[in-house]
């Protein structure tokens, strides 16, 4: 793989409702900010990838609303319908195919949709949809399967929420910085057994942008380039009943490929910080298992052992993660931006010490059906 780098990043602050901005306004802001961050002009960008979804936007051809705002009006532009980590993957492939710099933008306004209806649309229209299943109730099934398999208690999941909302206090972009305790999570309102309100990410509005460039452009950008060392994605079966929900096999496969590309043999030793997409608390430990950071069933013990907390051996979600700001689709791109900021040493109060290599992750589909894993680093 030719050398490519993340040379510009930008995010909006994530909020419950951005009443004064339409999709194009959000995307315009992050496009301009990412260009400024990179020290590039719009003319330096020769390819554009937007990320959106017709269901969430309530618009068919949802990419159309942000073509102007992303600077794509006379450029090769396309739209990935899915998580931003996948959009960035397409952006990378364009640079590897000969474009010099691709900007990848993602937007989401949870305030303008009903996520129960839009995520009910993920399920089989004949056999499952009429049961009322949606992203949250499917996640609850997965949490139950995971707990049952390994004898996990709900408190282990609650610790993730406590950690990530606490980390969010260091992140100016986060929506829900909070000082909470395990007891607060346990007594919060039940959403879908075993998930309680504080086990679930909020409804969020926001946008993010990343500029991926070739070596030549990276040599003249304003900030230290964050080199792309490995990336891969993988999808497993569709019907929940066909899947082992307690074993994220597609994530394990994507991670294996990404590590191989990056030359990583021992992820826990060689990766300094991880940003994983966890709109539900149980997902963080489950994904840590899929990523090979610990043995199956031990994901929830990593906080207690002081491994994934700030100052631990492998801090996970210093940003506060999706539990603290949950703009769907933007989520994976935000994880990649946070990983890049960590490598740059520009993560402010949430900075992890001496980050050489960082991992970012996003997923598509119910209960993490399709995962994308990124490894980025400071060394070329």
């Amino acid at each position, binding site marked *: 793989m030719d050398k490519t780098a993340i040379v510009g990043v930008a995010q909006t602050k994530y909020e419950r409702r951005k009443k004064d901005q339409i999709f194009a306004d959000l995307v315009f802001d992050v496009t301009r900010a990412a260009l400024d961050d990179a020290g590039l002009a719009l003319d330096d960008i020769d390819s554009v990838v937007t990320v959106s979804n017709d269901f969430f936007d309530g618009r068919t051809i949802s990419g159309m609303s942000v073509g102007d705002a992303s600077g794509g009006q006379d450029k090769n532009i396309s739209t990935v319908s899915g998580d931003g980590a996948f959009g960035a993957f397409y952006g990378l492939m364009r640079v590897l195919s000969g474009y010099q710099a691709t900007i990848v933008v993602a937007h989401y306004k949870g305030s303008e949709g009903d996520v129960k209806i839009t995520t009910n649309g993920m399920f089989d229209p004949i056999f499952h949809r009429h049961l009322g299943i949606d992203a949250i109730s499917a996640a609850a099934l997965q949490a139950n399967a995971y707990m049952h398999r390994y004898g996990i208690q709900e408190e282990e999941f609650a610790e993730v929420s406590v950690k990530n909302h606490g980390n969010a206090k260091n992140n100016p972009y986060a929506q829900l910085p909070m000082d909470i305790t395990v007891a607060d999570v346990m007594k919060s309102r039940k959403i879908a057994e075993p998930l309680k309100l504080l086990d679930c990410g909020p409804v969020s509005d926001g946008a993010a942008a990343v500029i991926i460039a070739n070596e030549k452009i990276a040599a003249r950008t304003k900030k230290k380039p964050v080199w792309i060392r490995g990336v891969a994605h993988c999808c497993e*079966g*569709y019907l929940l009943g066909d899947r082992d929900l307690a074993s994220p096999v597609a994530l394990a496969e994507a991670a294996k490929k990404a590590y191989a590309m990056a030359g990583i043999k021992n992820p826990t030793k060689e990766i300094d910080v991880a940003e994983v997409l966890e709109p539900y608390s149980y997902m963080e430990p489950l994904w840590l298992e899929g990523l090979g950071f610990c043995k199956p069933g031990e994901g929830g013990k990593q906080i207690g052992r002081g491994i994934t907390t700030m100052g631990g051996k492998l801090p996970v979600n210093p940003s506060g993660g999706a539990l603290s700001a949950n703009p769907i689709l933007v989520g994976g791109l935000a994880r990649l931006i946070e990983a890049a900021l960590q490598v740059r040493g520009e993560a402010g109060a949430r900075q992890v010490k001496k980050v050489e290599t960082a991992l970012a992750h996003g997923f598509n589909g119910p209960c993490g059906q399709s995962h994308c894993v990124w490894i980025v680093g400071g060394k070329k």
Partner: protein
Amino acid sequence: MGRRVAIVGTGQTYHKSHRPDVTSREMIYEAVTAALADADLTIRDIDAIVIGNMDHFESINYVDAYSVEGSGAFMKPIMKVSTGGTTGATVAIAAYYHVASGLFDRVLAIGFEKNSESDTTGAIITCSDAIWDRFSYSGAIPSLATEATAYMEKYGATQEDAALVGERDRNHALNNPYAHLQRPLTVADIMASPMLAYPIKLGDICPRSDGACAVVLAADGIAQKIASRPAWFKAAAVRHTYTWFGDSTDYNQGLVSMQRASKDAYRQAGIRNPVEELDVAELYLPYTWAGLKWIEDIGFCGPGEAARFVGDRNTHMGGKLPVNPSGGVISTNCIGATALLRVAEAAIQVMGKGGKRQVPDVKNALATGFGGCFWSDVVILGSERP
């Protein structure tokens, strides 16, 4: 610079107005198995998959996740790309970058639509801005009717001139066993068909179809081993120029996106005189006037000359530059697959697999996509490794 890439296999369903016998997942499976058989590959040979449609036609969110059992993406990378009518072309182009990037050797591109499960206009109308565009000027037919009227006014083209495009494509469809509408139409039939929005009549416009298309792409070195005559990518150009329908209404400028995309594509492919150097074109012409006005924007003839160019049968089978040997969009329109069908049909022509619709000795074939807010994509395929 990226690797060279070729199409080595294509597959499509027998397109119909209704496929109540299958789900869209099963329809995808039909196209995928046909494409794999055409390339003499199995799903195990495929490294990655790109899929596209328009969500609101089937009302399935995350079709990349939903379609796995049909697409064959189980434990493989799959990505969804969706850009409206241009979806099929952007899927083909995304698959092209998958291979050109060096990350994947054999990639499957899939487009599908089951329009029978939707209210097509009800879904399309939501593409435009909810406050400014949606209530005044939206959906497919009104904007095209305005464009046609402006073209007639400017160049004096007649409704009969446009109807000849429909007669041509509907006749070509008789050579294509996969085409949805297999009943020929004459200029007189089209003129007598019911008016939808002046000057567009029922015979002037595309149907809505159920169908799927799949294309297998492979990298240089591998493609030659799979296919005896691979269809090499010589150009892939995209211009999705407008966001607002209000910006697209200066029809005197022509179809700006097509002018820019084709110019870019000819530059990539080193083509100076398209009519001389191209042997066949599969154009996304959703209505008959597009077969006049847009072939001017793509440089097949000068401004205002299209009625004569088409009238002289240059674009009929056996003409100088046959357009839509497959019968085109006016005969078959499963929207998310439509532009991919153009690319697949161009590849079929280069590979010499066109059967009754084959144009003799095709070296260069051009395919287009159209959609969104007057957007255009152009792909040029050739028999010679670039």
